[in-house]
């Protein structure tokens, strides 16, 4: 998929663990893992909002469009 999820990069920048983020955004570890590994097919705006709030970033910091070569 040409949409790349850079959640791990932002988590590393904010020095936040998956467990901590999971508690802050009220998402299960399994769902966060799906999002982190790029297996997710869709992201709800409410989830994106919660993640941006927890990591203090913009949606563009988490999602990136990379054209397939």
């Amino acid at each position, binding site marked *: 998929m040409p949409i790349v999820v850079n959640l791990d990069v932002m988590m590393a920048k904010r020095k936040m663990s998956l467990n901590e983020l999971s508690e802050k955004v009220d*998402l299960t570890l399994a*769902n*966060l893992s*799906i*999002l982190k590994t790029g*297996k*997710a*097919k*869709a*992201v*709800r705006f409410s*989830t994106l909002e919660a993640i941006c709030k927890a990591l203090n970033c913009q949606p563009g910091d988490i999602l990136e469009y990379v054209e397939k070569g």
Partner: protein
Amino acid sequence: MKMQTRTKRVLAILNIVSWVLFVGLCIKTGAILYSFFVSLAINSEATRNLYLGLNLSDLHRFSGGHYSTVVCLIILLSGLKAYILYLVVKIFLKINFVHPFSTDVASLISRISYVALGVGILTLAGNGYCDWLTKRGVAFPDLQSYLGAGGEFLLLGGIIFMIAQVFKRGIEIQSENELTV
């Protein structure tokens, strides 16, 4: 809630009916197969009553090849119908009504549609073959109850094929839904 209980009961009855039909068709196929071998290898008098009064002695006298072809067609169609019911029984064993859209069930439904279409085409061909033999002067019993009606099976196969396609789309939607975070 009441509707759900009724649906469950209907499904349980359908499950029992498909088991009964499956066993019945297996017995029918086995019985015709056995009497066919007896008529060929042991005693040709068996052609007078192959299965529940099926008398193909005139056809046997007319030509052994045509007799074998017609009986093989009857056995094949009966076996394929038993296979369809085996697949239905398998669906009942595998389906989970909480998460019904699984690839296993989808492949079973598509297989049923392909087999039903095959049965329909074979039945139509068999009926045409029997008509051709009748025109050549062979006295024939009515084989409708042994061969069945091809049109119905073609229609059934077509409808199940469409349901299989909808089911496949259902699986895609379910997996998308499961992967929405």
